[in-house]
């Protein structure tokens, strides 16, 4: 099915572990984004990508790494998870500048 899928939907991990959140879109959208959602902060941009092999930091990039070797995939890695990274993570994609995003269903990550 066409769309944008995130996995896993829920994840519990321990402090210090490496965690990778997956994001896959089937539209070949140029733009892809990772946001985190925390109460009182709305959605804050972690990283974004305008095309394959092009990634840039957003508002809150510390502790995260991304890659985009293929247009359709945009994984987000927490190199050494901390409790402050407990959050809901959203991946999104967009075909061009004037469009809204289409969001994945989100990953709820808990770091214990």
């Amino acid at each position, binding site marked *: 099915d066409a769309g944008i899928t995130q996995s896993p939907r829920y994840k519990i991990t321990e402090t210090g572990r490496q965690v990778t959140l997956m994001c896959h879109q089937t539209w070949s959208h140029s*733009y892809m*984004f990772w*946001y985190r959602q925390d109460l*009182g*902060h*709305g*959605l*804050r*941009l972690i990283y*974004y990508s*305008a095309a394959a092999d092009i990634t*840039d930091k*957003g508002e809150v990039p510390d502790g995260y790494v991304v890659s985009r070797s293929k247009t359709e995939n945009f994984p987000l890695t927490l190199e050494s998870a901390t409790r402050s990274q407990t959050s*809901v993570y*959203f991946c*999104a994609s*967009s075909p061009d*500048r*004037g469009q*809204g*995003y*289409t*969001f994945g*269903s*989100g990953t*709820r990550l808990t770091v214990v």
Partner: protein
Amino acid sequence: AQTVTQSQPEMSVQEAETVTLSCTYDTSESDYYLFWYKQPPSRQMILVIRQEAYKQQNATENRFSVNFQKAAKSFSLKISDSQLGDAAMYFCAYRSLSEYGNKLVFGAGTILRVKS
């Protein structure tokens, strides 16, 4: 950098009545897009409505309409004939057309409760 402010953390409306959610933004740009997103308890983000800044006409989508005041940098969402399914968190968002990456900047959100 652009900022988006939603001054109402929470709003309530009676079923079948009308409610307006407020949003203001700060920008020095003349061309941009504005959006309202709905996030129900399922946490899925759903695009409700989009407004292009160069268009004076306010966007409408069925029961949803906006009041776009460019000079005042205001972008409110009106929901008419409110339904129980409208209960959700609503986010206002701004998208630059000139800034690299053309990222969406979100407000903190407004929780809308619908009473039967």
